């Protein structure tokens, strides 16, 4: 969105925004990554999966990959691309799944014994602003580590199948381990267990996030709802852009370590 976003530092971390048939939101996701200083580009499902390994991080963006056939994210999760991304995740690379991308991560097993089921009780598609609150340990996840505990971010929920679910004891364990790094403020509109909006893996380098940060990442996205954000700079990153800024800072730190 910003002018600066177009001119990317050649030393910037390389991010692949993976596109399956039916993916959407990839352009906003690219913009959000670039505005945070990352070198993001689209990676099409028909490209050679092995060439994914050259990237530093991966984003599965929203949409309806393979038309959500069988279950949301199920077909894409069996893709050779996801096999490569899973292997790279085990090597510590950062993986962000947003909405349909979160469903792909859940179906692939990258966030453990977690499923994403149909919204309850509505059972239908819901699209609305939601306020998402950082947990007590945002530092355990690469995508939230620069948020304050309890920080609130406005995002856009847009899904029919967004309810994090699974065994109750497993979710208690997720809670104890601080892996529910983002949860809905108040009652979850989709019935998610523990109000989960974002769940990371044990190592904190994979985050499945149901609401869309990239749809509320600039002032113009949210100013009509929040007049305090109206200004002469509608393309100014705000609020949920912090997810991408956190990702970029984590990648810089990782590069420095390597």
């Amino acid at each position, binding site marked *: 969105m910003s002018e600066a976003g177009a001119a990317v530092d050649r030393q910037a971390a390389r991010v692949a925004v993976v596109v399956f048939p039916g993916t959407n939101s990839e352009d906003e996701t690219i913009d959000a990554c670039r505005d945070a200083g990352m070198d993001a580009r689209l990676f099409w499902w028909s490209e050679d999966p092995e060439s994914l390994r050259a990237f530093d991080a991966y984003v599965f963006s929203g949409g309806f990959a393979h038309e959500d056939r069988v279950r949301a994210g*199920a077909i894409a999760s069996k893709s050779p691309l996801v096999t490569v991304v899973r292997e790279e995740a085990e090597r510590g690379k950062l993986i962000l799944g947003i909405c349909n991308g979160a469903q792909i991560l859940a179906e692939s097993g990258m966030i453990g014994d977690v499923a994403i089921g149909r919204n309850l009780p509505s059972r239908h598609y819901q699209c609305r602003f939601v306020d998402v609150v950082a947990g007590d340990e945002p530092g355990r996840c690469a995508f939230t580590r620069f948020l304050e505990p309890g920080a609130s971010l406005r995002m856009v929920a847009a899904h029919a199948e967004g309810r994090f679910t699974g065994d109750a004891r497993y979710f208690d364990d997720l809670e104890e381990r601080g892996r529910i790094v983002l949860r809905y403020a108040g009652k979850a509109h989709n019935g998610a267990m523990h109000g989960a909006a974002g769940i990371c893996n044990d190592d904190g380098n994979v985050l499945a996030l149901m609401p869309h940060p990239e749809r509320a990442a600039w002032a113009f996205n949210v100013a009509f709802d929040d007049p305090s954000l109206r200004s002469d700079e509608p393309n100014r990153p705000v609020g949920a852009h912090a997810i991408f800024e956190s990702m970029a800072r984590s990648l810089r730190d990782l590069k420095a370590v390597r």
Partner: protein
Amino acid sequence: MPVYEFGVELTVGDNTAFTVRGALRGLGYVDLDRVERSELLRLKLPEGGLSIDACGAALTHAEVVFNPNKHRLSHSGPDETIVYEAVVADVDDDSTALAEMLRDRFGIDGLEGVERAIAWRLFENGGKSAGAERLEWACTSLLANKFSQSFTVRRSPTRITGK
């Protein structure tokens, strides 16, 4: 309490079944040639309630589950066929609203509940039906998410199409 099982199938090409064929072949089931899918509705009626034919007639007017332009409706008969099928259901499905609608707006009087599921049938080259073990593999590999769904493998019942 009578339980009537209905199957709703597409009469036009089933893109989801075709996608599943490709995905399962990609996972190593190279002999897979064809996939069939039925959406199942199990209606729980009170003793002395509507007949299965009357329920079927009512369902054909409920476009939320049946579109006459692209669907075929059948009900399951008492006999089994030699074909196996996997029946996959969401463990926490809530069909209360559907049951209320079928009862209150589409005339299935006394309807006490509805269960939904998907039946999958797999056929190999030469038309041979996949066996039970292969269907279990397909469910654990793709068709059922063990954290949110359950599945059973059974002999497919005869499916009787209404008049």
